[in-house]
């Protein structure tokens, strides 16, 4: 027998409070209003009062609308049929096809026991030297792309999605412009990966609560594929929109804000999602790449700041390039020792010299005379930017390393690079003068 409750006590923000009994925390309900049906989630129990967060928002909800409890948490159907499909933040089809079918999967599953994780040790080649050489992407890594509005972060994300070696690609769009959603879909279609991709898209026009569901839906599905031995790549954009949705809801819930209006549990909320990235012992893996736009290009803003503490590094996209400063892959040491013996040395030396080049540029810009050493650095910086940093460059790792040596040899004496002699002797391209 279906039981309905219709004594709605309060409606505020997206939260509706109803009198009901026998309801479990975090469970799902359906609220029927003049606008149709919407899912809602239990976010508080106080005596007989049940607070519900309504996915479609509370516009048009009346105090005698009907609420039915499903006595289960939010779920997503799981099967191979999901591949090639597009859904919204409530897991309803967005591609005009029939609703998905499959085994129902609770979202927000428990934490993976660290004991059952394995050490990540497989590099994901992307063909982008600034990633492969300097900050290698590793299977099971969680890595954001820090950027600002206007930078080609979605293009970069799509390109990595297309070029990276993964079995399944899951895209989670949050607050996405409709155009961007179409661009992603088209890019995946033209790149021939749509057949092994699943898209969960919340656009800027959709209700804000659905935005919160997107990462959980993507990660629940991805995790299941990973448990079946698949190597899954999850692309999330834009996590700042997710954090803003959290903020919006926390403020309407009258929670005490901690920093710039964001709730005190922002770190925990984001960590719960990012930490789903995993390399299972005796099963597959899930890698998470996320875009984080930094309001005002401010890396100390609570969203990029908390993200940086959670993720295993970050790519810093600035002026259309992946900046070597600020970019970091924490897992690169797991893989770049086994690629080629000069990989680490090149990685360190090129960046140290590029940092010195920046100092020389500052000196030059302030009108000081450049010393011979400054001139070498200036030449190096220019070559490095043109031949390595440019985002359009597509090179396999070994070719990129060779190119780095060529640039060094064009600009410096071996001892000036700070690279160990044994490695210099083996790789220095002496043929060039």
């Amino acid at each position: 027998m279906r039981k309905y409750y219709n004594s709605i006590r309060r409606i505020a923000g997206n939260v509706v409070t109803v009198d009901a009994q026998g309801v479990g925390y975090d469970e799902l309900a359906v609220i029927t209003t003049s606008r149709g049906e919407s899912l809602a989630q239990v976010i508080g129990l106080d005596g007989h009062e049940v607070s519900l967060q309504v996915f479609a928002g509370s516009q048009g909800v009346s105090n005698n609308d009907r609420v039915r409890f499903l006595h289960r948490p939010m779920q997503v159907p799981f099967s191979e049929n999901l591949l090639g499909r597009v859904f919204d933040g409530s897991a309803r089809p967005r591609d005009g096809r029939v609703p998905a079918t499959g085994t129902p999967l609770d979202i927000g599953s428990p934490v993976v026991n660290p004991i059952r994780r394995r050490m990540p040790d497989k590099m994901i080649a992307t063909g982008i030297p600034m990633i492969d050489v300097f900050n290698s992407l590793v299977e099971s890594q969680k890595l954001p792309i820090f950027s600002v509005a206007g930078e080609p972060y979605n293009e970069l994300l799509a390109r990595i999605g297309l070029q990276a070696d993964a079995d399944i690609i899951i895209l989670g769009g949050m607050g996405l412009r409709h155009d961007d959603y179409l661009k992603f879909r088209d890019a995946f279609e033209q790149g021939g990966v749509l057949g092994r991709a699943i898209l969960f898209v919340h656009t800027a026009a959709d209700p804000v609560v659905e935005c919160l569901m997107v990462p959980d839906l993507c990660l629940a599905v991805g995790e299941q594929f990973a448990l079946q031995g698949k190597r899954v790549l999850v692309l999330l954009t834009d996590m700042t929109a997710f954090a803003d949705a959290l903020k919006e809801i926390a403020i309407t819930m009258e929670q005490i804000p901690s920093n710039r209006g964001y709730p005190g549990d922002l770190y925990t909320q984001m960590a719960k999602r990012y930490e789903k990235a995993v390399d299972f012992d005796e099963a597959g893996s899930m890698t998470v790449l996320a875009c984080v736009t930094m309001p005002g290009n401010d890396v100390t803003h609570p969203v990029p700041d908390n993200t940086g503490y959670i993720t295993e590094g970050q790519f810093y996209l600035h002026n259309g390039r992946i900046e070597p400063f600020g970019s970091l892959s924490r897992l690169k040491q797991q893989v770049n020792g086994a690629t080629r013996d000069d990989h680490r040395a090149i990685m360190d030396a090129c960046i140290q010299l590029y940092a010195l080049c920046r100092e020389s540029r500052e000196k030059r810009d302030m009108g000081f005379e450049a010393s011979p050493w400054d001139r070498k650095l200036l030449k190096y910086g220019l070559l490095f930017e043109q031949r390595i940093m440019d985002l359009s460059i597509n090179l396999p790792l070994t070719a990129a390393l060779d190119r780095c040596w060529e640039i060094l040899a064009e600009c410096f004496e071996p001892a000036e690079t700070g690279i160990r002699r044994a490695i210099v002797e083996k790789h220095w391209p002496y043929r060039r003068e």
Partner: protein
Amino acid sequence: MSGRMKGKIVSVYGSLVIAEMEDRVVQNSVGYCHRSDGTRLLSEVIRVRGQLADLQVFEETRGLKTGDEVEFRAEMLSVVLGPGLLGQVYDGLQNPLPELAQRVGYFLAPGTYVPGLSTAVTWDFTPSAKVGDSVVAGDTLGTVPEGIFTHRIMAPFAWRGRYTVERIASAGQYTIDAEIATVVDAQGERRVVTMQQTWPVKVPLNVSRRRLLPTEPLVTRVRIVDSMFPIVRGGTYCIPGPFGAGKTVLQQITSRHAEIDVVVFAACGERAGEVVETLRDFPKLIDPRTGRSLMERTIIVCNTSAMPVAAREASVYTAATLAEYYRQMGLDVLLLADSTSRWAQAMRELSGRLEEIPGEEAFPAYLESRIAAFYERAGVLELTDGQLGSLTIGGTVSPAGGNFEEPVTQGTLKVVGAFLGLSRARSDARRYPAIDPLDSWSKYRGIIEPAKVLQMRRLLAQGHEVRQMMTVVGEEGTSAEDFAIALKADFFDNCFLQQNAFDDVDGATPAERQRFVFDKALQVVELDLAGLDKTQLREVMVRAADWFRNWNYAASGSSEYDRYLHEIDRFIADRQQSTP
């Protein structure tokens, strides 16, 4: 008085549950919320208002309903202490993670609890107390071998007064729950002693005659730490730094190379991947001092960022208690907490749920006193038998935006003995370890004479000043004399302070070698380079730096080591001669 207290849930908000208790309720007692499907969720009473008890639940509260039963016992959150703790990997509530993996698979299902120590394992007990001996809390009754250590079985720390040993077990194999002694107190009341005992995690465990001043340097084999900003056994230090500056790497290096008996690693609210790295690496790494696997001297307490937040708050205390237990055996213990900011944030989340009046940045008003109380658990103790044991605490701090002017960093700086501040500028320039040599400080005395350390600190400060000036007046506006100072400061930075953590040799420098290299670097820095122009100066210092770097990579005693040392000596001699 440990009767059960019962009640029913009236409210659920995230990890905070309010229950109406039937009768008695004891603050900080632990018990369970009974979910209607039979799952028990561990909880703690954190506030009492009339018959209402506010509970923090150490698990996800999904599925809890109003009317669900709660049941508590008048006991505080405790850990079990005894042989078998070393080498374990626990969650924040002392559940062994490998056991959980065997029972419930890939995921940590809420409501599964496993005792922290196995009662199936037997230990080789040797009595040391005799019948008729008079003992007090913390006195050794016997020993068992645990890996490389002699694990003392001690009289329960909670005892008050003197007891007389009435019976003691003979040498043999016992499990931790077997009776190994019976004692009577002055009133003739009899007590049974086993090899395990419990202790409440939030109460410091320090049964001793007195607390001593910590003075003995703790060698971490990180040059910039040991030589410039030393830490000592029984001292405290903190490592604040923005993300990506290398806090965790520094903690991991320390946990590997520190010259200490036992390391307790509290991974608090950080990435699971980092715990996995320790888990997989440590069993394979051999501790050169003992010839055994590093895991044998390590306990890992991990509550990673995705695990329930209330347990995160507890995990730091769990780790501290385990560390204190081994200190009671006269061992030198190092507790590494990574990161104390996550712990503070957990307090903030709970405080927010309780709707307490927030302090700065919404942290609770008691933040500073909690931080101070935590670091105060460190120290050197003269134990009841006169032996010394020490607990050193090193905590990382993850300040929001990398700005040290925030409550957790500031609250920590007030109470620690050394501050190893990591800088974004240094890590961006790949100068690792990115400890800022100008801002950091230590109140302790290390392995290098303080006068020499001061000399180098002055050089670094002067070098920095010259560099600053050079950005204004340019290289051509700088005198050769000043320029030489800047180059020498750079040289010392490059060749001594920076260290490649991923190189087997350079990654860990023993104290003896540090002293030797430091003195050589000092000789270079003291060279009189007057008369050289700037190009010559740069050339000379580049050469010196090149030799030193290669020397740092050469294993002690290798022919390479001798070769580079010879080059350096000749270089110094040449320069000394060429000056009139």
